C-alpha cells in the first residue's frame, strides 16, 4: 500500500515537473457542456488564447450528477471550478462548504437581482411549454387553461431531472397552497413523465404529446439551426419560472488566481457569445454584438418567478410529496 502511494507520488512529481510551464485549470461541468455541440470547445479555445494555461473540462453526467460527484470527492477533488449547477442545486452545493467566495465580478444582467457571494451565473432561461404551431389551436395562457384543455403534455420527473424540478417550483411559485389542486387538474393532461429532458423532447417531436416542458428559447434552435419556424413557446400569465446556471470556485483549488481569471473570463463577451447557439439559453452578461437573429422572435414573459436558493431547498421535499400524491391518484 505504502509502496503504491510512494510510486504514485513519484509519478505525480514527475508529472508536475513535465507540466510546470503550463498550469492546468480543471473545470468540472456537465457532460453536454463539454460536448462537440456544447459551449466547451469554443470556450476552451478562447480562454487558452489569453490565459497561458491548459483548460481541462471534466464532464460528469448532468447538473445533479455534477453535484453528486463533487460531494463524493469532497475536498480531495482536483477540480478548481465547478460550472453548471442550477438554482435548485445551489443551496445543497453551498452546504457542502467546498466553495470559496467569488472574486469581484461585473453584475449579471438577469430579469431578477443576483447577489450571491459564492455562485456567479453564466446563462439562464425561462421554463415554458413548447408546442407545434398549427396543431395546437387554442394555445393555453395559464396552467388553469392548460388543465382545463384536453391538450396532452409530457414533462420530466422532478426526482431525476432539473427542468422537472423547475416545473415543480414554477407551479409552487405561481399557486402556493393551490399547487396541489393544479397538479390534480393537470393529471389527465400528462401523457407521461420521463426521467430526463431529452426523452420528453424526443417524444414531443415524434408527436406523442402536444406540448413539452422545455424553455422559451427552445424554438430558437429549430428556427436558427433547422430553419423551422413551426415551434413556439406558450406565454403563461402567471409568469415563468427561471433557471439560472451558475459556476463557483472550489476552496481547495491549487490554482486560485487562474480560477478567478476563468470566472472573470466567464462574464466576458468571448465566453457569453458562445452560449446562445450552443446551450440555447440566454447569456447572463451583455454581449456587444447582441443576441443572434432569431432570438428576437422568442416570447418575453412579463413576470419572472424564482425562489431564492434557500427557499427552493426548504420547499423541495414538501412540494415533491404534494406532486407525487396528486399524480398517483
Amino acid at each position: 500500500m505504502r509502496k503504491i502511494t510512494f510510486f504514485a507520488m513519484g509519478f505525480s512529481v514527475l508529472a508536475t515537473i513535465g507540466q510546470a510551464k503550463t498550469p492546468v485549470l480543471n473545470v468540472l461541468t456537465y457532460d453536454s457542456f463539454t460536448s462537440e455541440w456544447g459551449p466547451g470547445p469554443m470556450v476552451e479555445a478562447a480562454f487558452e488564447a489569453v490565459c497561458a494555461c491548459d483548460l481541462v473540462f471534466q464532464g460528469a453526467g448532468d447538473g445533479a450528477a455534477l453535484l453528486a460527484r463533487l460531494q463524493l470527492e469532497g475536498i480531495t477533488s482536483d477540480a478548481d471550478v465547478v460550472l453548471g449547477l442550477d438554482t435548485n442545486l445551489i443551496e445543497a452545493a453551498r452546504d457542502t462548504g467546498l466553495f470559496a467566495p467569488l472574486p469581484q465580478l461585473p453584475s449579471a444582467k438577469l430579469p431578477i437581482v443576483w447577489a450571491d457571494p459564492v455562485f456567479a451565473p453564466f446563462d439562464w432561461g425561462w421554463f415554458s411549454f413548447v408546442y407545434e404551431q398549427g396543431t395546437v389551436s387554442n394555445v393555453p395562457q395559464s396552467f388553469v387553461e392548460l388543465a382545463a384543455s384536453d391538450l396532452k403534455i409530457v414533462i420530466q420527473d422532478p426526482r431525476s431531472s432539473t427542468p422537472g424540478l423547475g416545473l415543480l417550483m414554477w407551479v409552487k411559485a405561481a399557486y402556493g397552497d393551490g399547487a396541489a389542486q393544479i397538479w390534480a387538474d393537470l393529471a389527465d393532461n400528462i401523457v407521461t413523465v420521463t426521467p430526463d429532458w431529452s426523452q420528453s423532447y424526443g417524444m414531443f417531436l415524434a408527436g406523442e404529446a402536444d406540448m413539452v416542458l422545455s424553455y422559451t428559447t427552445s424554438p430558437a434552435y429549430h428556427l436558427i439551426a433547422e430553419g423551422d419556424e413551426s415551434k413556439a413557446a406558450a406565454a403563461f400569465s402567471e409568469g415563468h419560472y427561471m433557471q439560472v446556471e451558475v459556476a463557483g470556485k472550489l476552496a481547495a483549488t491549487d490554482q486560485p488566481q487562474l480560477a478567478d481569471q476563468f470566472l472573470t473570463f466567464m462574464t466576458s463577451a468571448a465566453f457569453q457569445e458562445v452560449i446562445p447557439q450552443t446551450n440555447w439559453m440566454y447569456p447572463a452578461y451583455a454581449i456587444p454584438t447582441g443576441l443572434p437573429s432569431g432570438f428576437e422572435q422568442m416570447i418575453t414573459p412579463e413576470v419572472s418567478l424564482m425562489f431564492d436558493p434557500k427557499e427552493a431547498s426548504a420547499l423541495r421535499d414538501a412540494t415533491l410529496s404534494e406532486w407525487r400524491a396528486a399524480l398517483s391518484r
Partner: protein
Amino acid sequence: MARSAVSLTLVGVTAVLGLLLIGPLAAVIWRADQGLTALDIEAVRFTLWQAALSASLSVALAVPLARALYRRRFYGRGAIISLLGAPFLLPAIVAVLALLSVFGRVGLLAQGAAMLGLTLPSIYGAMGVILAHVFLNMPFAVRLLLLGWQSIPSERFRLAQSLGFGPPALFLHIELPMLRLVAPGAVMAIFMICLSSFAVALTLGGGPRATTVELSIYQALRFDFNLGAAAALGLLQSTLCLAALGLAALLPMQHGFGIGLDRALALGPPKGWRAYADFAGIFCATVFLLLPLGVLFYTGLSGIGSLPWVIWPAAARSVGVALCAAFLACFAALILAKASLRYGRFYEGVAMLPLATSSLVLGTGLFLIIHPFFSPARAALSVTILTNGFLSLPFAFRILLPDLRRLYADYGHQMTLYDLGPWAAFRFVIWPRMRPAIGFALGVTAAISMGDLGVITLFANADGTTLPMMIARLLGAYKMQEAASAALLLVLLSFGLFWLFDSREGKDA
C-alpha cells in the same frame, strides 16, 4: 497442475464478483451519514409486481414460440432467430421511442385504428410497462428455450415416435422435463432485469405511480445525496433478487437426457391445426418484435452517412469495450457454471449476483473506491469494461449452464475416465458441443456491453467518449434526428457483434 489453476481461477472469479457486489455497497454505506428515512413500500410493491408479471408473461409467451421455431422449417427462419436477439440489446431510451412509434398515442397502431374509426386505449400505465418489458425480454426467453429444445437428443424424439406418442404425450414426457430445467432460470433472469428497470418503467408507466426502487435509488444518489437511503434501497433490491434466487433454488434439479449421437435433426412436425397455430404464432411475434425495429431503421437510416465524424472513433471504442467485456463475462460464466455443477448451487447464486446489483450503487461505490488512488477519468474505460462484463455475466451464465449441465450428465463420466484436463475437456468435449451456446453467450454479452451507460456517468471520461455517451450528447443538443441515426448505428453494431458470434456457431442448430 492445470486443475489447481482452474480452482485458483474459480476462487479469483468468485472473489472479484463478491468484491464487486459488496465493495461498492460497503463504500456507499461507509460514507453515509444518515440512514433510510421513509422507505417507499409503494415503490417496492410496484417493482415486484411488474417484474413478476413481465417475467412470467415473457416466458409463457416464449414457450409456444420457441417450440414453433424449433419444429418448423421455413424460409427466413434463421433470420428470425437471429433478429430475436435484437430487442434485448436495445438501449432503454431507444427501445422506448421505438415502441412508442408503434404503440404510442400517434403510433402506427393508433393511426391504423383511427382510419377504422376506433380509439385504442392508452399505452401509458401498467400495461405499457408490461408490454415494453415483454418486447425487450420475451425474445431472450425464446432463445434460451430454443437452446433447451435443441439440447434434447433427436434419439429421444425418435423413441417417442416409435412408441406412438402424439404431440400431447411428447410435450408431457420430453418437452416438459426440459422446460422444467430451463424455464425457471429464464423467468428468474428476466424478473431480475425488470426489477432494476427505471427509464422504461417510468416513461411507459405514465408517471409517479410507476415508481421503481431503482428510481428511488437514483433520486437518493443524485438529488438528495442521501447515501444511506441509496445503500439501504440498494440492499433491499439485492435482497429481493436473492430471495428470488432462493425460491428458484427450491425447484428440483434434473439430469441430462442421456447420450445422443449429436444429431440435431428434428422429426416431421405435427400437421393440421398445429401447423397453422405455429405459423400464426411466429408471424404475430415477428410483427410485434420487428415493427418497432423497422421504424427505428426507417427513421435512422438516412442520417447514418452524414453523422459527424466524432461518432466513428466513439463507435470503435464501444466495440472494443464490448469485445473485452464479452470475453471476460463468458470466461467467468464458464468457470462458474462448471463450479456450480461440481460444488453445488452456491456458485449459481454467485453468478447471478450482478443482477442483484443496482448499477447506480455499483458506479457510485466504484467511484468512491477508485478516487483516492487515481483520477477516475483515467479509469473510465477499464471500469466500463469491468462493470459491463460483470453486469452481463448472468446472461452468459444462464445461456451456458443448461448445456454444460447436460454435457456433464452425459459425458462427465467419460471425461473422468479419460482423466481429461480442463483444457482438453474444453477443446474436445465442451467446445464442439457447446459452440452454439458459447457463440450466443458471446453475442449477447458483447451486445449488452455496447449499450450500457448507467455506471459510467460519474466518471468523466478522459480516454474519449463511447457511442452511448455520444447519443446522450446529441439528444442534449436538440439533435434528435442525428441521435436517432447514432442510436441505429449502436443497434446495428450491437447486432453485428451479436450476429458475428451467434450465427457463425449456431446457424444449423
